[in-house]
C-alpha cells in the first residue's frame, strides 16, 4: 500500500482498510487498519497532523511520545476491564525501536484474561509504539490474543520494516 501518507507492505490475505478522521478545526489524521481474517490480532497505524497532534496531547495531558504510548496502554487496559473486571495488567518492557528511520518509543505488555470470546477469557498481548516528528504524532499498535499475536509477530516485524513515511 502506497499513498501520500505512508508506504507499507502487508500480506494480501490480511484484511485492510484506511480512513481519515478529523476535520479542519480538530486537525486531520490518517489511520490504517490491518488484520488477518483467521486470527484475532490487529495492527493499527495512526498519523496525526500538527493540529490533531497538539489537540490530542493537550486533551489527554500528555508530554511526549512515551506518555502517548503509556496513555494508549492504559486505554487498552480500561477497554479490557469492560469485558472482565478481573483482568490483570502485566508489564513487559519499554524501549526504543527504529521505524521508518525514526526512533520510536515502545511499550509492551500483556493483559491476563483481558479478552472474552465464546464465554472464555484469553490473554492479550500488546505493543504500542509512538514518536513525534516535525510536530506530528505517529502511532503504531499491534495487539491480539496471546497465541495469535505470537504466531503473527514475524509478519508484524516485516510490515514494520517496510514502513516508509
Amino acid at each position, binding site marked *: 500500500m502506497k499513498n501520500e501518507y505512508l508506504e507499507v507492505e502487508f500480506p494480501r*490475505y*490480511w484484511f485492510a482498510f484506511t480512513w481519515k478522521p478529523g476535520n479542519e478545526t480538530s486537525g486531520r489524521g490518517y489511520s490504517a487498519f490491518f488484520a488477518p481474517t483467521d486470527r484475532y490480532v490487529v495492527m493499527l497505524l495512526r498519523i496525526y497532523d500538527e493540529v490533531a497532534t497538539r489537540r490530542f496531547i493537550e486533551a489527554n495531558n500528555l508530554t511526549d511520545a512515551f506518555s502517548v504510548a503509556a496513555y494508549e496502554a492504559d486505554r487498552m487496559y480500561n477497554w479490557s476491564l469492560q469485558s472482565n473486571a478481573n483482568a490483570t495488567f502485566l508489564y513487559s518492557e519499554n524501549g526504543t525501536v527504529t521505524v521508518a528511520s525514526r526512533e520510536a518509543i515502545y511499550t509492551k505488555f500483556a493483559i491476563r484474561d483481558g479478552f472474552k470470546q465464546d464465554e472464555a477469557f484469553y490473554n492479550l498481548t500488546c505493543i504500542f509504539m509512538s514518536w513525534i516528528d516535525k510536530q506530528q504524532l505517529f502511532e503504531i499498535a499491534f495487539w491480539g490474543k496471546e497465541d495469535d499475536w505470537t504466531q503473527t509477530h514475524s509478519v508484524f516485524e516485516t510490515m514494520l520494516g517496510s514502513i516508509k513515511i
Partner: protein
Amino acid sequence: MSTSELRLPDKWSLIHAAIGGGICFIVMFIVSDLAQGVMERILIYFGVIGVIVFQEQFALARIIILFGAVYLPSGFFGGLYTGYKVEEGLKTILAAPGVIGFSILTILTYFLGQFDPSSPDFAYRLILPLLGNIIGSYLGGYAMNWPSEEEETEEVGKLTLDVKK
C-alpha cells in the same frame, strides 16, 4: 417500431409495472447483501482480501460486479413479470419496473442513512444500478414477449417477398 408500442400505457399496465418494480426491489434487496457477502468470502478464500485497501478502485470494481450480479438480474425479474402481464406498449412500460425498483431502494437507503452524496463513487452508485435495473427490465420483458416479436418480423419478410413477385 409499431404505433401500438408508443401508446400511453393503461391503468392495469401501470399497476403491473409497479408490481414489477416491487419484484425488482425485493430481488435487489435480498441479493445485494448476499452478493456482497459471497464476494467477500471469495476474496478471503483466494487470500486476496487485502485488495479492499485500494478503496476507490475496489468500490468501482464492486459496483461493476454488483451491476452484473444484482442490478441486471433484479431488473430482469421485474421485467419478466411485467412482460408476462403486459403485452402492449412494452417499449414505454418496461422502463418502469427498473426505475421504480431503483427509486424504492434509493429512498430506503436514504432513510437508513447510507445515502452519501459526498462519497467518491456516488455517481457510479447512482448510475450503474439504475442502468442495470432498466436494461435488465427490458431484457426480462422482451424475453417474455420474444415469440410475438419474432412473428412480427416474419410477417414483414413475407410482405417484402410478395411485393417482389
